[in-house]
């Protein structure tokens, strides 16, 4: 699939934009980094000052979306542009699942990545966006390998665990990461082609992507973690479980000392295998965000997506 051009690939002076290599390339460059949810230019500057590799511009962090209720949509373009003007790092923004018109607007704003996100209210309960049709790259959430491969088949160039956004509870992200990496290992160990056909059927995933995993032993695009990271130790946990970078939503700006928590999580993602450094950076951070038990939730955002 690599090299499949998007329909609006531009040829100018022998240079091609919007190719799979270029789209996945930015995800490669975000590895080992932290992407932080921000709702104002001030938040965006705090995130950049703390060492974020990118910010996700949205109107409310997921914990407030949960508390607020109602239909949650793409952010106001003016607000996204004010955040783009405030920082020099890449800026991402969210579109509702299946809402390709919101995605077209985000591309017109020249954001760096679009997140087709279950945190917003879905616009289509059957179809996801045809992401091959865009120059801007897309990240999508997944709870298991089948979902991840369906999104990659639709053109996603980065996969993140869904976790359960806005809870400050890492349990769902751990479940999703273990499910994805566990199935990748089992496919890599498959005995013959017939077993790969069965895997594709069971996962409801495109067969060529299952065969690619069998050959390479890795997901075809970078695998990041999102949904529930609230401490440096959470970040270390998900990185040790195979995530290659971390999205942090409510965990930073719902903590008692956001700049300090943000810096600490940035360092934790870099030094995730070094408990000595982690002990030092975890000390004296103040209160982490208040967490929620997932059993008591009325809305499970991770169930959105098909």
């Amino acid at each position: 699939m690599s090299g499949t051009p998007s329909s609006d690939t531009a040829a100018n002076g022998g240079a091609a934009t919007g190719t799979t290599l270029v789209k996945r390339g930015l995800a490669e460059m975000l590895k080992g980094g932290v992407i932080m949810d921000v709702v104002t230019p001030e938040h965006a500057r705090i995130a950049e000052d703390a060492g974020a590799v990118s910010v996700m511009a949205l109107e409310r962090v997921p914990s407030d979306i949960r508390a607020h209720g109602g239909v949650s949509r793409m952010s106001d373009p003016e607000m996204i542009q004010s955040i783009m003007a405030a920082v020099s790092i890449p800026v991402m923004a969210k579109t509702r699942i299946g809402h390709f018109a919101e995605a077209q607007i985000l591309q017109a704003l020249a954001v760096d990545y679009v997140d087709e996100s279950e945190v917003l209210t879905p616009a289509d309960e059957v179809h996801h966006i045809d992401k091959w049709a865009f120059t801007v790259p897309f990240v999508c959430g997944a709870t298991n390998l089948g979902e991840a491969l369906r999104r990659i088949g639709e053109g996603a160039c980065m996969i993140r665990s869904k976790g359960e956004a806005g809870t400050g509870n890492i349990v769902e992200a751990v479940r999703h990461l273990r499910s994805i990496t566990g199935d990748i290992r089992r496919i890599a160990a498959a005995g013959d082609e017939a077993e790969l056909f069965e895997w594709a059927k069971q996962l409801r995933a495109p067969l060529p992507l299952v065969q690619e995993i069998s050959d390479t032993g890795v997901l075809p695009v970078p695998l990041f973690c999102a949904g529930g990271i609230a401490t440096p130790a959470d970040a270390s946990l998900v990185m040790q479980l195979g995530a290659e970078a971390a999205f942090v939503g409510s965990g930073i700006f719902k903590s008692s000392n956001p700049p300090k928590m943000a810096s600490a999580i940035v360092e934790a993602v870099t030094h995730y295998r070094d408990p000595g450094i982690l002990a030092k950076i975890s000390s004296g951070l103040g209160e982490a965000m208040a967490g929620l038990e997932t059993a008591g939730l009325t809305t499970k955002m991770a169930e959105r997506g098909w």
Partner: protein
Amino acid sequence: MKPRVGVLALQGGFAAHAAILHRLDVRVDEIRTAEQLAAVDALVMPGGESTTMSMLLERSGLLEALAERLDGGMGVLGTCAGMILLAAEVVDGRADQHSLGMVDITVRRNAYGTQIESFEADIDVDGLESPFHAVFIRAPVVERAGPGVEVLARHEERPVLCRSGRATVAAFHPELSGDERLHARFLADL
């Protein structure tokens, strides 16, 4: 004995560099601390966010150790953000961003625009028989190259691959297109 090459792994595209170096049969170490840096013969500084890497260099205590090794003549390959960190002068960076000043160039960060302007293109490189396929991701532009800097490749007149002393810097990502020739040349020059 195989050379021992470090890949700065604070943040960014270090895994892709490490994969290419493994194929070239050298010993590869991920570098996150000064102790790890002390054990390697040469270093690759990958792409990523130069602002993030600059902060992490400082907080990890690596910055001084790295400057010392570079002054001592350690071979270094810097791509994209790595190029920015090794440049003498950075335009559109953060005020607190560190420059190691190993290559006398002025670079402008994110000069092409946002990700939708990122591109891939073939470039001619001095000493290579066929074009090299180069991937530019939110790439920096070299606005000035000093007299001591050898420009090895250009794209639309702008220098994109430069060498100065023991340092080689690229505005693009030779680790992403599957072509090992620039890494092989870096190793041969060590």
